[in-house]
Every structure is written in C-alpha cells, then in structure tokens.
C-alpha cells in the first residue's frame, strides 16, 4: 500500500507533459536533499558510536552497584514471600525522551500493554517521554506519575535519587500498598539486540515475610528492611537506567547506520536516474538540432 502511494506520489511530482528540464532539476534537488539526510544520519551514527563505549562502561558499573540488593533478594528468596501476590502492582517503565533509535521504545510499550491486559489495575510510573506518550494513548488512566528530561547523558546517582525520592513520596501518600514493584527497562543483550525485561523491588513488609530472611543477622531496632527498600529502589532504577541508556545508544547507532545505508542506496539510484535523464535531455536536444539542420538543407 505504501508502495502504491509512492508510485502515485512520483506520478504527481513528474507529470508527463512537463518539460524534461524541470524533471532534471527536480531530480537534482531530490538528490541533494537525500545527500543531506545521509550526512545527518551519518553524524548521528558517529555521535552514538562515540557515546556507546562510555554508556557500556556505565552499564557495567551501575550493574555492579545494584548487585548486592539483587543477591539479597535471591538469598532471602523474597520472590516466594506470601505478600508478593497481594497488594497492587506498581510498574516503573524506563525509556528516554528522544526517538530515532528503532523499535526500542515501542517494544517497551508493547510489553507494558501486554502486562496491562493481564492486570488492568496495575499502576504505571513512566520515566522518559516516549513511553509516556505511547501508554497515555491506550491506557491513560493507569499512568500515575511521569518523569522526563532523562537519557540525555549517562544516568547518575543524583538523577536516580531524585526520581526515586519522588516515587517514594507517591508510594507513601498512596492509599494502596505495593508489595512488589517491577522496574521495566531495555536490557542490551548483544550490540544489535535488546529485550524489554524487568527486575523486582520488594517493600519492607514483603522482605520481612521472606522465607530466607533468617539467613541474615539483622539488627531489629534499625528498621533495615525499610531503609533497604528505599535504597534498593534507587540502585535498581539507576542500574535499569544505565542498561536502558546503553541499549538505546546501541539501538540508535544501528538505526542510524541502516538509515545511512538506505540513503546511500537512494543516492546511487538517483544519481543513475539523474545521469540518464541528463543524457536523454542532451540526446533530445541533439536530435532537435540535427533535424532542424537537415530540414534547412
């Protein structure tokens, strides 16, 4: 259908009765603009490539930073805590504000939507405008809190602390209890593939009921599970943002690489068309001159 539209568009832009000069001019202009597009996509690709190595380093360090909490949940078997089934589910979906990076944001939106189909009462907190726009379109009522202005540079501790403190404020003010918070992010599996995955953060009540908590010696009066929950939420968001950022940069690099290649193909095709048309114009003029000259004889 798209191809049909393209054919109609070409027909409209090059009507048969227009003189060939105009067509040649048009092809030339088109060619120039495609060359400009290629320059832009190529630059974006180079920018993404230079950012990629830093983003990947950031991904590794933030993952190390969040590891202790992950280990803690694993060892205490918080997943099997009876409270995880109760309460409302809270979902934090992390993308960024900028597009032009392939299907990375829409695959996240797809994942969230499929989750909402199963659990229509789940509350969504969005980080990044892209995911917010997509979820608002279909499930506007579920979006409770939205953050933007993230994902321009490598995520840092301050940024994630500000976000998590706002989220904690929301959780404390909300009448609902959220025993399990899922943080959704794009996990860069290889340099060319990514997957929208999620990691859980459990609140203090859930951790208190975790079957494996007895493996740790915990000072009672300090209220460690609560502090740990607040801290874990922050580290989890930071590491998820680190991973999401690396995935996004890598996806942008690939998308822009493909776009540059496509633009290159179009430039080739258009230069051939341009040369042919130019040749045809010259031949036509020659024919005109020769016929004119021969008619004078």
């Amino acid at each position, binding site marked *: 259908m798209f191809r049909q539209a393209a054919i109609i568009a070409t027909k409209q832009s090059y009507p048969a009765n227009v003189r060939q000069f105009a067509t040649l001019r048009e092809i030339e202009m088109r060619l120039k603009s495609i060359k400009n597009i290629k320059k832009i996509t190529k630059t974006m690709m180079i920018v993404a490539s230079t950012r990629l190595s830093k983003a990947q380093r950031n991904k590794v360090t933030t993952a190390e930073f969040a590891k202790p909490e992950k280990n*803690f949940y694993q060892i205490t078997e918080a997943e099997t805590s009876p409270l995880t089934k109760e309460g409302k589910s809270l979902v934090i979906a992390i993308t960024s504000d900028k597009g032009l990076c392939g299907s990375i944001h829409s695959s996240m939106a797809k994942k969230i939507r499929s989750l909402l189909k199963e659990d229509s009462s789940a509350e969504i907190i969005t980080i990044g405008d892209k995911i917010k726009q997509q979820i608002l379109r279909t499930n506007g009522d579920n979006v409770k809190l939205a953050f933007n202005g993230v994902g321009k540079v490598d995520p840092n*501790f301050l940024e994630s602390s500000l976000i998590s403190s706002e989220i904690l404020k929301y959780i404390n003010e909300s009448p609902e209890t959220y025993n399990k918070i899922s943080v959704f992010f794009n996990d860069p599996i290889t340099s060319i593939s990514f997957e929208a995955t999620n990691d859980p953060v459990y609140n203090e009540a859930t951790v208190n009921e975790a079957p494996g908590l007895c493996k740790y010696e915990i000072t*009672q009066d300090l209220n460690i599970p609560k502090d740990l929950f607040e801290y874990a939420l922050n580290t989890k968001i930071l590491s998820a943002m680190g991973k999401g950022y690396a995935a996004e940069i890598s996806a942008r690099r690939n998308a822009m690489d493909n776009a540059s290649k496509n633009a290159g193909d179009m430039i080739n095709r258009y230069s051939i068309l341009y040369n042919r048309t130019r040749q045809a114009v010259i031949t036509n003029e020659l024919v005109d001159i020769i016929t004119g000259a021969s008619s004078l004889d």
Partner: protein
Amino acid sequence: MFALRRTGLQTLKRTYANEAAASDVLKLQFALPYNVLYQNQAVKQVNLPLQSGRAGILPNHVPIVEQLSAGIVEVFEKDATAAGKKYFVSSGFASVQPDSTLNITCAEAFELSEFDLSKVQSLKNEAEKNLTSSDEVVATDAKIQFDLLTTLENELK
C-alpha cells in the same frame, strides 16, 4: 525441629543467622555508582562504620545487612596488622553474603589522604552558620553537613 523453630520462635528466627560461611577468605565487593573500587578481591579484614557501631569484618562472618553511617571504611588487603587503606564514606549499605562476600555500596567514597583538613574546616564553619536558619530544610541540610564534616575532621586529625 526446624518446623518447630519456625512456628514457635518467630523472634529467634530473626535474631540468629543460621547460614554458615564456607570459605576462609573474605571477598570484597566495593562499588560506587560510577566506579568499582574492589571487585571480588580477597582481603584479610574490613572495618566498617555500621549504624550499630564500628565493626571489623573477618572471613566467615555471619551474614548481615546494615546501613553505614558516615565514617571510615578501612580495608586490610594483605596484612591485618599493618595500616589498611582508609576510605571516607558518607553513607551506604554493607552486606555480608553467606558465601563470605562483603558487599559495600555507597554514593561517594574517597581515600582519606585525598581530603584537605583546612578546606574541611572552612566548609564546616559555613555549615555551622546555617544550623540556626529559620528555614527547616536549610537547617536540616546544614545539620547533616555539619555532622558529616565533624566526623571527617576528627578522622583527619
């Protein structure tokens, strides 16, 4: 017997860790948000400023999870008798896992030698001025800052 403990002695379940560590080296994992200082490195001993008091962690320590208060994390890499590497941390979390791994995560950590005493003192004086501010937020900020800098100053002296 296990079942009895679980049902009958709920408090006991929380008080004593029943998981014994298996190895005799302490593996230290010390991570900052932007850097990893130690990655699973075998060390002799680590002293921590826990909220319940200062604690020295040796291999086979019982698994714990606790918040750090501002103070010195001292790492003895090879020898527990020689002076260890001292890092000043503002806050954070420390946890000993059942496999004798010590995880420390904090927002910032710097070696003690990197601090300048005169700068610390001047910052402390500045914070002291704001302690009596009428704005509650400013006063609380100043209080935290003042306490932290006092600890740091004492350590530097």
